[in-house]
């Protein structure tokens, strides 16, 4: 590692270093798989495409849930709207039956499909947002759960429009009808990477590489380029928006909607914008999926897909774009990784000479049968793995793996103002939390002494004493106790907060 890279790595927070480490490790594993021929390059690119798709979905949900606190359980529906929007226009067996690959011989149909998908998702988002976004957050959650099923069932049952459960086949790649790119996969030469014999004499010998880069590979490469472009553009937009005053209002709404309203922000409008933006991003993921998989069916709108995306966002760290990215990556790693794990493990427990089998007959057989069940159904146990992971994350790191790490203000504006520079609040929170923990313990012990005199101040209906200019004695008690800790109360967070929690409860109406 170069010195510059080393410095850069040290400049990251621990969470960032962890995430980078994980990604590097997994990438190394994949490269190893590629090099040893265990992983076909085309399939590898397909996996990268899937990661990109999940990253897009996570981005979309992150705008809604992570920024704004909107609970949207219809991720799969917006994804499906995107996929069907473009598929209906371009699929070979689409009931619309549009011929050719360009509109008016000019614009590629896939581009029109993308636009239609985006508009469709936006319209549905507005339609579901109008009745629910003025209400409390839970109403959107319920309504969106219903919406997801409605959309799925419409696609399943409106055979005249959508082909029903047969789905839409023969969807072209996204670049069909584009100049140059359309024929790119065919135009590229077939490259044969010969297998190499690698050996350390006498110790170890294996064959590596040995695959062909043919048209499907180049097609997959195009797909990856497409999804990377989408991810890149969306990330750039979100990064800017998240740190802008716009993003700040969304984050305020998430924390406290009343406060945002009281400060003159039209929260309904902001929530609607976030909801539509997130839904459109999800639809983009659907568009990509349709042109990656070349087949869409109502099965793609199953609710489980919604929850995978939720897992990605929660795992990555709600409210963080990079967290959403990381989460999408991890979910695919689990979903596809478990597939391989099942193949790698032997089908049955290796026969071992377990002593005293005649004495304990039942125990080993139970282990054996459980093992066989798990291995032969590994794909199904991935849900178990995902569930376990979520439990662990919630238990040990409820804010997710990579929550927002820095103050979210445009660095340029901070630099231009005369105020203090950019900070790293997350790290200071952790440090200070441990530092102040002791102090607040101490003030908790003091609390009982303070409560007693407070009660006489709280008792305000004592006739003549009511309007006394100076509260006798009682005020002195509290100020005395605060003097113990520090002379300047403005600087004494723990002390004052102790007072606040004691008195706040009594004085509230």
């Amino acid at each position, binding site marked *: 590692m170069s010195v510059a890279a080393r410095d850069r790595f040290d400049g990251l927070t621990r969470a960032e270093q962890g995430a980078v480490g994980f990604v590097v490790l997994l990438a190394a594993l994949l490269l190893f798989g590629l090099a040893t021929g265990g992983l076909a390059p085309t399939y590898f690119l397909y996996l990268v495409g899937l990661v990109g798709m999940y990253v897009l979905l996570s981005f979309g949900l992150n705008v809604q849930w992570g920024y704004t606190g909107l609970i949207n359980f219809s991720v799969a529906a917006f994804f499906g709207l995107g996929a069907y929007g473009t598929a209906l226009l371009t699929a070979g067996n689409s009931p619309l039956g549009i011929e050719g690959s360009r509109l008016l011989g000019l614009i590629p149909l896939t581009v029109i499909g993308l636009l239609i998908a985006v508009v469709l998702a936006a319209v549905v988002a507005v339609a579901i947002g109008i009745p629910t976004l003025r209400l409390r957050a839970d109403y959107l959650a319920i309504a969106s759960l219903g919406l997801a099923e409605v959309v799925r069932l419409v696609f399943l049952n409106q055979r005249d429009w959508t082909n029903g459960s047969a789905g839409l086949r023969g969807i072209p790649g996204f670049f069909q009808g584009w100049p140059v790119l359309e024929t790119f996969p065919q135009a590229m030469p077939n490259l044969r990477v010969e297998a190499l014999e690698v050996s350390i004499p006498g110790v170890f010998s294996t064959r590596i590489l040995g695959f062909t880069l043919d048209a499907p590979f180049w097609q997959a490469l195009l797909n990856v380029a497409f999804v990377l472009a989408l991810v890149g553009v969306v990330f750039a937009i979100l990064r800017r928006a998240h740190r802008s005053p*716009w993003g700040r209002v969304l984050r305020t709404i998430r*924390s406290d909607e009343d406060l945002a309203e009281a400060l003159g*922000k039209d929260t309904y409008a902001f929530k609607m914008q976030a909801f539509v933006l997130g839904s459109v991003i999800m639809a983009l993921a659907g568009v990509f999926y349709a042109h990656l998989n070349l087949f869409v069916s109502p099965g793609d709108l199953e609710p489980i897909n919604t929850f995978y995306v939720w897992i990605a966002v929660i795992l990555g760290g709600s409210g963080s774009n990079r967290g959403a990215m990381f989460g999408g990556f991890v979910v695919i790693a689990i979903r596809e990784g478990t597939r391989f794990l099942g193949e790698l493990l032997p089908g049955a427990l290796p026969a071992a000479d377990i002593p005293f089998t005649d004495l304990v007959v039942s125990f080993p057989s139970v282990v054996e049968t459980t093992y066989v069940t798990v291995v032969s159904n590994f794909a199904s146990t991935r849900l178990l793995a995902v569930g376990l992971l979520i439990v662990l994350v919630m238990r040990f790191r409820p804010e997710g793996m990579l929550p927002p790490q820095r103050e979210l*203000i*445009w660095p340029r504006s901070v630099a231009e103002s005369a105020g203090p520079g950019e900070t790293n*609040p997350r790290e200071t929170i952790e440090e200070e939390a441990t530092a102040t923990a002791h102090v607040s313990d101490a003030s908790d012990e003091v609390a009982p002494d303070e409560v007693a005199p407070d009660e006489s101040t709280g008792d305000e*209906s004592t006739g003549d004493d*009511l309007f006394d200019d100076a509260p006798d004695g009682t005020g002195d008690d509290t100020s005395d106790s605060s003097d113990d800790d520090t002379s300047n109360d403005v600087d004494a*967070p723990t*002390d004052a907060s102790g007072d606040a929690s004691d008195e706040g409860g009594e004085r509230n109406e």
Partner: protein
Amino acid sequence: MSESERDPGLLEGPNLDKEDVVLRVDGLRKTFGGLVATDDASFAVERGKITGLIGPNGAGKSTIFNLVSGFYEPDAGSVSVNGVDVTGAEPHAVAEEGLIRTFQTPRKLEGMTVREAMLVGPQRQPGESFVKLFTSPDAVAAAETANIEDAQRMLEQFEIDHLATQPATDLSGGQMKLVELARAMLAEPELLLLDEPVAGVNPTLANKLREHIARLNEEGVTLCIIEHDMEFIMNLADPIIVLDQGSVLVEGSPAAVRADDRVIDAYLGGGGA
């Protein structure tokens, strides 16, 4: 009435005959089921003054604040800010007319630094438009820089500038009240409604808050304050409006209110008879 003859500084009911009125509340009524929280409440807040709103628990002070700021919709009556009728308007629309309120319990903004939390205050920021972020980035950045500087200056005025880059959730109750006040000031309000600014604040900090509020008033900010702490409100506000059972009992100078038997009766639960 005999009481008002006895003390010319005290009016039975509200004083609606003021010269330059920022907030006028007329016949406001709100019921929650069978409970009448606010019953035909009328009062006026004069520009440049600190108007205190006191009354025993359940007198309807907070309900009136919620009605005025748009969080509740009144059953009857009207509210106007600067002569503009805002009855039943949404809170953000009321805020746009220049009426900014704070809350009894300070609201925390998770994941933000104090400075970020402050930056929510300024009104009509160009950067709050998603489109403008991309069509006119320079204007947005310039406004943001100016707002950061304003926020920093405001924090300095409230002597909490050392907290600027602290997490907003790490503050004490009193510091949060200061931040909330400072943020409300960034909204450049015509009228600032403070809901129990010193509830849960220790006496030293309460004194500081009083000085800050008095300073803001000298700088020309009109305030209307609900407060239970009598010493605090009596030394700060003039006039004082006393609410009882959802409507205005008396209005007058602190000294006059303090001496009035009916006010004491109201606090003792005598029903103001």
